[in-house]
């Protein structure tokens, strides 16, 4: 990462001859940020009818990190990720990936990102192998290259035996694995995964984790949303906590945890921990004695 920065500063010296001092400072900070940040959103906002799904989110993910986006249901994780990946138009705010604006420079952004959206939406009537090949060719990769990469991905993901089955007949774990394969096929710089481990059996989950760890070890970035705190704690070095359409905490894992377990930190942050003491006693008095 260090030589990236010095390279950037070198560029800036060149630029400095032509621009004013204050502009230069803005340039430096922006350029440095682009050097080190894979994802930055500012004031991201989305409303569905009366409901504000995402109310001004400033998401930051440093380059090369394994980042977890956690939050209770309805916190706006999926909506945020959809907007960041260009699948949903934000009402306001900007999104930059590797310094490129998602909505102004879609070509540059789309070449750099891989996406596994929520749900299991895939081309159901293609086989796993055909799905990968379609995806690769659509991205303009040479066919031979696509076939070779697909073959390797299918092997690693343990999908070789089912490669020629239609995706419509795949189980949840297989779908997540083929979806991740499709997202990795063009070797993106940043990978966005929405609930990649939801409904996945431990064996498949382990495969997913291994592939993702290998991927981030090479300096690429993963952003994934999850409910499973243990997993986030084990895998991530960067955490963003969302609650009610806002980011309530963001930073390196240890900083967010601040000595607690991530689960406790999460409960404290989203305001669920406080209420645990007395309120449970008030209602539900009829529950638990089903003699009637």
């Amino acid at each position: 990462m260090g030589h990236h920065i010095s390279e950037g500063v070198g560029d800036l010296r060149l630029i400095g001859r032509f621009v004013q001092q204050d502009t230069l400072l803005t340039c430096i900070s922006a350029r440095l940020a682009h050097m080190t940040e894979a994802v930055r959103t500012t004031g991201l906002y989305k409303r569905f009818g009366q409901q504000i799904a995402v109310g001004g989110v400033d998401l930051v993910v440093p380059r090369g990190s394994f980042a977890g986006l956690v939050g209770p249901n309805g916190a706006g994780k999926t909506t945020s990720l959809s907007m960041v990946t260009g699948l949903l138009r934000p009402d306001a705010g900007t999104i930059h990936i590797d310094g490129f604006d998602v909505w102004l420079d879609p070509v540059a952004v789309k070449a750099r990102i891989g996406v596994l959206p929520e749900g299991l939406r895939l081309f159901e009537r293609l086989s796993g192998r055909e799905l990968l090949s379609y995806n690769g060719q659509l991205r303009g990769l040479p066919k031979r290259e696509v076939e070779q990469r697909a073959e390797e991905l299918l092997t690693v993901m343990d999908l070789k035996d089912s490669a020629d089955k239609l995706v419509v007949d795949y189980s949840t774990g297989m779908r997540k694995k083929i979806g991740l394969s499709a997202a990795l096929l063009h070797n993106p710089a940043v990978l966005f995964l929405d609930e990649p481990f939801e409904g996945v059996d431990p064996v498949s989950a382990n495969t997913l984790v291994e592939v993702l760890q290998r991927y981030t070890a090479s300096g690429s970035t993963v952003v994934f949303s999850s409910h499973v705190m243990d997993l986030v704690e084990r895998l991530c070095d960067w955490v963003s906590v969302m609650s009610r359409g806002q980011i309530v905490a963001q930073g390196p894992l240890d900083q967010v945890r601040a000595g607690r377990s991530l689960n406790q930190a999460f409960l404290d942050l989203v305001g669920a921990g406080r209420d645990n003491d007395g309120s449970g006693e008030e209602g539900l008095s009829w529950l638990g004695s089903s003699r009637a």
Partner: protein
Amino acid sequence: MAGLQQGVRLGLGATVALFFRLKIRLIAGNLRGEVSRQIGFVFSLVAAVAVAAGGFLAMSLVRLAAPDMAVNLVIIAFAVFWVTWTIGPLLMFGVDDTLDPSRLALLPLTTRQLAAGMFTTSVTGIWPLVTLVITSGAIAGLAAGVAGIAIGVIAVLLQFALCIVTSRLVTTALSGALRSRRGRDLVAVGVLLVVLLSQAPNLIANRGSSLDVERVVVGMAGILRWTPAGTAAHSIGAGGLQAVIGLAAVALVVLGFGALWIAALKRALVTADTSTQSPAGVRSRSLASRLLPDGAFAAVVAKEFKYVRRDPRGRVGLMAAVAVSAVMVFSISGGGRGEMSGAWLASFPACISALMLSLQSSNAFGIDGRSLWMNAVVFGTPRDVRNDLAGRHLALAVIAVPIVTAVTLAGSFIAGDPLLAVPFALVGWGVLGVGLGVGAVASVLLPYTSPERINAFSGAAPGQGGVAFLGSFGSLIAGTLLSLPIVLPPLLGVMWWSALAVPYGMGVAWAGRRIGGAVGFGRYPEILAAVSRPS
């Protein structure tokens, strides 16, 4: 404690009221917050009122016919309604969005409550009401005196119940088959046979244009009179004891069907989904990927071909177009040759089939549905969308051109002038291009979700029926209008004009892709949302 007991003690009237409110809420919920859905709803409401009023009027006008004839006509009408309700839901028209019974499986409902509730939700809706209004036109058309009206009302209500219960019985009984993927695919194709069969009387009527209509009506009514629907209609005309016996018989049939329906319902609720137990592999080396230069275009064409083969929705559309063309050729071949000029015979079926085939593309992204995100995360320029449309166009054209050619050949042979096939094949191909161009624009302007489950009995996701209607009829009208410049001159004898048809068609298709690419890229997230609705 209280909750448990209330659930069990819900009376029949309360159950009916509860389910009625539930259905109304479901309809209202589907409309909430979506202007396009609301417009679509208003649209279908207006259509429904028009159909109901027209139907009622037509039914009541049979009074003008001779009494015997009037009864015969109503018998046929009732029978047609019954058959329509029986097979209609399988034809995927957006007329019915009934509650899925499996959602009620965990509620502690007695069979009686379940039956009453399901019946209530079935009859709560626009189209059941339209049916009721039209059939009650028979009272105005046939009944005489107070007793006659009383019998008429009972007959109409029984006919209504018969239609609904039969419709439910058929769909529920088939729901097991409809739940498995292969069964669903099979049924989708089987539906076409039903469509073809339903054309049979039409064909016979066309063939025997020398026969007088009256004899055909009397003959048909003589047979249909013995169907439950026919008996109900007959009773209105007959009156007296005969009517009472007839109606009692119909009531028995309704109850019997109802019992069968409930039995089927209970079975369907606990029968497992077997759709994933088909380990058959597919491995095909697509011709498209071998012939076309490597790239996104070839990928789209290959994918489209696979979808035509493997997705029943696409297949049904194509096969329906082929079937309609065949029926048209067949029926005009029986019609009087003197009435139609050879040019008409050669061109009309060809143009209709070309338009129908090409308008399969008028909701190009609908079949991709929720998987369209995969394109969305790749497409970075309008050119990508255009390329995608072009791939779809090529795939469809490869299938459609031979069909249109065959239809033209058949038409011109029947016309007795095989040479006519040359200009009119050109015209047909031109119309194909026009349809593709129009379809590309419609696809980006009025996209809608094409339900994955064919037993949803709808061409669109709940609430999108209006958009689907606008999309398909709008593109039909636009396609027809844009086709006229190449269809009319050859039809009027200016044969050399047909040489312009293919360039014109390709031009329109190109322009459609151009507009579709530019507009479509700008609103890709919105298209994605429109085709990804739960269905």
